């Protein structure tokens, strides 16, 4: 980071201007997979945020020790240990969530957001700023998941926050008077839930619409649009074996 930014900015950038899912288009696989219900999305968001803060702190603290040639394996080892801790905790305290998240919980290891923050931020910045960056990015990820899953669950299943008890199992049984979500569209009346939004095509559709909305929001603030810029924006461009003919022609390399 060439310019010095304030702590507050490092925290808030994760929400809109550099939202990992909707602006940087990272971690789309868990995003599409777990946003079928709000409870799943919150669980995934919290788990990823904890891993992100932990790995950012440790990688930032070790940034001068890790040789740059083996940095990626080193980052993955650090991230994997945090993911294992989180997975064990979830298995022990909220087993229902572990069941519904399935393979996506251990897959946080290869989540691009976490590896991306380690590579782009934590390995270049001091510990405290990295922790704030991790928190902001994690909450940004959670917010994006929350928006997507709310739309998908309300329209697609006709419920909101269904299965809250499985998440609240952390605090004991029947917390909040046994609240287990609202049923908005029962399916017996005239209205019926639109199942396609729970299915994969609906997921992609909601994802695209949200991305368009956030692009519009960012545009209003004068920020550039999120778009794929080809080889010039790729972190692997220097070591890539493929010839980037267009980039060479345009003189970008």
């Amino acid at each position, binding site marked *: 980071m060439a310019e010095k930014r304030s702590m507050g900015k490092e925290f808030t950038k994760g929400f809109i201007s550099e939202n990992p899912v909707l602006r940087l288009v990272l971690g789309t696989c868990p995003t599409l997979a777990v946003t079928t219900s709000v409870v799943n999305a919150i669980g995934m968001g919290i788990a990823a945020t904890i891993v992100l803060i932990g790995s950012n702190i440790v990688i930032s603290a070790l940034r001068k020790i890790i040789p740059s040639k083996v940095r990626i394996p080193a980052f993955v080892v650090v991230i994997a240990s945090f993911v294992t801790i989180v997975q064990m905790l979830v298995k022990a305290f909220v087993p229902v969530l572990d069941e519904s998240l399935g393979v996506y919980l251990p897959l946080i290891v290869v989540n691009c957001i976490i590896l991306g923050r380690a590579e782009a931020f934590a390995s270049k910045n001091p510990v405290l700023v990295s922790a704030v960056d991790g928190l902001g990015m994690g909450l940004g990820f959670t917010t994006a998941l929350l928006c997507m899953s709310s739309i998908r669950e309300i329209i697609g299943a006709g419920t909101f926050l269904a299965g809250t008890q499985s998440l609240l199992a952390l605090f004991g049984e029947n917390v909040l008077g046994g609240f287990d979500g609202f049923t908005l569209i029962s399916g017996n009346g005239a209205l*019926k839930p639109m199942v396609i939004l729970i299915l994969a095509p609906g997921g992609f559709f909601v994802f695209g619409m949200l991305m368009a909305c956030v692009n519009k929001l960012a545009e209003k603030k004068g920020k550039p649009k999120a778009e794929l810029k080809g080889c010039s924006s790729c972190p692997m461009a220097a070591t890539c074996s493929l010839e980037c003919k267009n980039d060479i022609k345009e003189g970008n390399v």
Partner: protein
Amino acid sequence: MSVENKLNISASPHVRSKTSSKRIMLDVIIALVPALIAAVFIFGYRVLAVTATTVLTAVIAEYLSRKAMKRHNTIGDFSAVVTGVLLAFNLPVTIPLWMAAIGSVIAIVVVKQMFGGIGQNFVNPALIGRIVLLSSFSTDMTCWTEPLKWRTGDAVTTATPLALMAADKKDQLTGLADMLLGVRAGCLGETCAIALIIGGVYLIIRKVISPVIPLVYIGTFSVITLIAGNGDFTYLAYQIMGGGLLLGAFFMATDYATCPINFKGKIVYAIGCGLLTAVIRLFGSLPEGVSFSIILMNILTPHIESLTTPKPFGTVKEKKAKKEAAE
């Protein structure tokens, strides 16, 4: 008129045809009218309510989305009306009207306008409307009523001929004459084979569609079905008239924006449609596969097009030229 005006030379094209998108869409609407009238006879006046809902919603959705995107208004070309009618033809008559409206909005806003409006849609809008409704409200989308029962007031649910054949209940099938006239269960516009064929022939005579796609589509499908049915022509006749094949082949697969332009490309596209339809019907878990096969081939259309572009006279292919240069 003065001499100067007579000798005015303009840029090409000099020969102008009166064909316009509006004229083409009007022809398609005219071709769809016989099937609509037949549907009213078979399934009752609710057909008109469903069609009016889809058409109105499609036109309003087109107007509003063009307005929201600050583009010029295109409801005058009637393409939204065609989409609305085609979508209605793909729905069962008992469908709740709000579902039909949702299908229309998705077809127009998501598939057509978000990709740039008329001529820019990458798949057939009406078919996506149908597929979204089918996967969202599967019970309402597969609730078939018996034909002609609307006069007596009782709506009896039954199975479509294709579902009957898939379930091996051939004794419950209606006669072939009834199939031709459309007196069978099914989506409201797909049943009357004779009305659809009249509409299709009208479009071919008016040169709105080329006969290649429908003929090759139905031909490929027939060959595969004949082989699978051990040469049983009765089985083939039920397969051709039992689902949405005729509607799909004449009105859906021939959409200009989503089928190849070249003759060769059209043949490849139609063979693909026929093959996929037959495969889905014979081996798939759904009894009907016309909509899915057309959508899949729509998506492949750009690739078919790039592989079948005709070679201009006198040019040498790039690979061959390189080879010769190397020698």
